[in-house]
């Protein structure tokens, strides 16, 4: 199968790769571009660990054709920190023990980031709603919800869109 070229911005840098027409964005990010923050959990759009932002919207990269990302802005958890300074959501996840095995964490952070960008002061129910497509098998969700609310209270939504 002929590979097709694709170019987009990944966490603020121009990146390019060659992909199968049917190849998904998750594979391109992980194997093609070496960004291992998004994870493979199910490959079927049912677990949320592969969540990335495409033009600011949370999307499941395992279901997104890589080729469809031409010219888009893609953001993953590995681009959240500002140099050595963690994003407030990342700090809040640490402070609230929101990661146990950590496998769901990049996807959760991304879903939370999208929420706070649109809604800097979400209610608890809105937080729950925003992460309801993301499975965490370890924490029981309470610390994740607490972390997102704490980051919102600290102005995470304002600081970085």
């Amino acid at each position, binding site marked *: 199968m002929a590979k097709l070229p694709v170019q987009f911005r990944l966490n603020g840098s121009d990146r390019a790769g060659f992909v199968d027409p049917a190849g998904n964005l998750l594979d391109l990010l992980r194997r093609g571009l070496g960004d*291992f923050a998004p994870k493979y959990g199910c490959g079927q759009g049912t677990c949320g660990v592969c969540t990335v932002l495409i033009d600011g919207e949370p999307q499941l990269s395992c279901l997104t054709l890589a080729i469809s990302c031409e010219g888009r802005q893609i953001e993953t958890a590995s681009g959240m920190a500002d140099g050595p300074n963690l994003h407030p959501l990342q700090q809040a996840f640490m402070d609230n023990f929101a990661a146990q095995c950590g496998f769901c964490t990049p996807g959760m952070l991304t879903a939370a980031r999208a929420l706070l960008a649109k809604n800097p002061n979400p209610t608890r129910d809105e937080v729950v709603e925003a992460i309801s497509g993301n499975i965490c098998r370890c*924490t029981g969700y309470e610390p994740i919800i607490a972390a997102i609310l704490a980051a919102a209270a600290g102005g995470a939504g304002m600081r970085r869109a």
Partner: protein
Amino acid sequence: MADARRKLDIAAEAGPVGGALAHDSAAKHVAGEAVYIDDIAAPDGLLHAYLGLSTVAHGRLLSLDLAAVRAAPGVVGVLTAADVPGVNDISSTHRQDEPLFATDRILFHGQPLFAVVAGTREQARHAATLAKAEYAEEAPLIDIAAARAAGGALVTDPLKLERGDIAAALAASPRRLKGSMAIGGQEHFYLESQVALAVPGEDEDMQVFVSTQHPSEVQHMVGAVLGAGSHAVTVEVRRMGGGFGGKETQANLFACVAALAARKLKRPVKLRPDRDDDMAITGKRHDFVCDYEVGFDEDGSIHAVDALYAARCGWNADLSGPVTDRALFHMDNCYFYPAVRARSEPLFTNTCSNTAFRGFGGPQGMVGAERFIEEVAFATGLDPLEVRKRNLYGGNSSTEGLGRDLTPYYQQVEDNIAGHVISELERRCDYQARRAAIREANAKSPVIKRGIALTPVKFGISFTATWFNQAGALVHVYKDGTVALNHGGTEMGQGLYIKVAQVVAQAFGLGLDAVKITATTTGKVPNTSATAASSGSDLNGMAALDACETIKRRLTEFAAKHWQERPEDIAFLPGRVRVGAREIAFRELIQAAYMARIQLSATGFYTTPKIHWDRKAGRGHPFYYFAYGAAAAEVAIDTLTGEYKVERVDILHDCGQSLNPAIDRGQIEGGFVQGMGWLTTEELVWDRKGRLWTRAPSTYKIPVASDRPRIFNVHLLENAPNREPTIHRSKAVGEPPLMLAISVLHALSDAVASVGDYRVCPRLDAPATPERVLDAVERVRAEAAS
């Protein structure tokens, strides 16, 4: 002066033990930089393997034509049983009942037949679908009823626990009843699926990076399959993206196939199954049917229990022996049965081979115990909580010469705090007043009915296979005073690494930043046990401490000689070492010791004391101690649809003197929600052909954020050091909290019972899906009306 100094309470000085310290990988987790097996930088020449699976559940493999597989684009090799240089078997029991690749008998749908290796994962996956297999299909045995109907073949020896004369005690009981309960299985759904990466070395060497809870077993299996000694195989795992028991034995297959391919092709090989294949191939929590007869009296006192626990074990023994044993060890939960008989029936079925899952049969045993209680409560009209309290271990009244503290396996319950935990939680969550209010509200609410239940947990800590209760550790102190720590335990998110690091840092009086936690590898600590049975910190914490103490002994001896002080006057304090009247930095001591040629590295070892178990006799002291807890759940059900919400949960859980209360709290909350999923929405479905239908979260409903209890109050039991001298008097916490979720099942039952005016026992089976709840509502209504 020296004596006065010794009176300083060193333990009271602040140290890392007992602190709510973040998970050691927290910063890497949030940065997306924590490396899981599939994130390891691909070695040059990496190939990808994929498994070819049987498409029937039972029969003979007549032929396997792999020509099209071999000819597929990118394929560089195909492996079948004929390519195995060692033994074509990965049975952890050594019963030779688990071929790596099937050769003749097909025993479940999804059984590996071959592996194909190609340049890319997609190529391997695609090629695997091109095999042409011919089968002589036979009817599969899918569930417990079918297995029994076909003669009830067992995968392993059953267990019987018996105390007292059960027939006589049942006959003499003022009242008796019989029943049966179905208890469902559970898919682990570790977020990181199974995965292994094998890298061949020189000679017969093989390095395997694999997501496993049991590196030593993988090492042994890979050696056996390759026909090499264990010394040629090194197995390493830094962290797993969840395990929950699903990577205790189930990783062996993937590691062995990757290693076999790497050996044959002399290239690094990775194997990661798609999630749906992972779910089809790997074993799950055992589902059970518990048939019981209970003798009791009008006061709600149990006189006798006779229970048979049958389990769907799948196509081989795997861990089904110890899992079904542990079910029997927990068929008493916190309750004393004056006469008791418990039997297990580990049945062969043509389904995936069920395996370890957090609680390891204990939860199923305990769900049975709580059903017995519920039956007695409905039969006598008492509040189930009252019946629970009435039957707790403890007290001195004797029956047949036995105290009320003897378990069905003749271990005395010496550390019983169940009564205290229950009454404390009852008070804190205002159980009685809320129960009364709920009943009043239910009377006025025609559709939405609420329910409440408070259930306790007593969970036995130790591997029941006594020899597994050993652990090793390796501690190096480097010349600059930094410490490298290695032990046999694996990190799956539970916080084992940070807990053991806290122990080591405290032992030397160092900060955590001075202790480097290193990946678990068979090359550093050999012959380790699985990280399982909640034993991780108990065993590895002690082994690491032992290594630290050895080094400290050498340092103390040296310092006493070097500075002319008495050994008693050397003390490792936070941030410094006291040597007589002077205080020096740890680093200074280490440098001096190095110059004096003192060995600064040590191994540590630990074996759990007190435990023994005679399985044939059904007698012994299999558990070092028990971990306790209690939970009160409140639910609301819609009696028209069966749908429900968990409104509030209160938990009081015993972690002894917690090594890290934040980590422990995480285990409690996470374990509870996972247990709640098991007992409510997670339902596995196989069709009549033996195909698993529930192969993704779209059909298999794992709790999501909106399913968690709306109000969730979690507390660690205060001032409750372990009575046994465990590591800093802490208690194991990995599994016990899962069983706190039994409160949800009983709260649902209480809500259902309201439609029959609390006169009919709902006998709600697990998982209590909305369909089951609705069904129970209709049944109870009909029975109450008749």
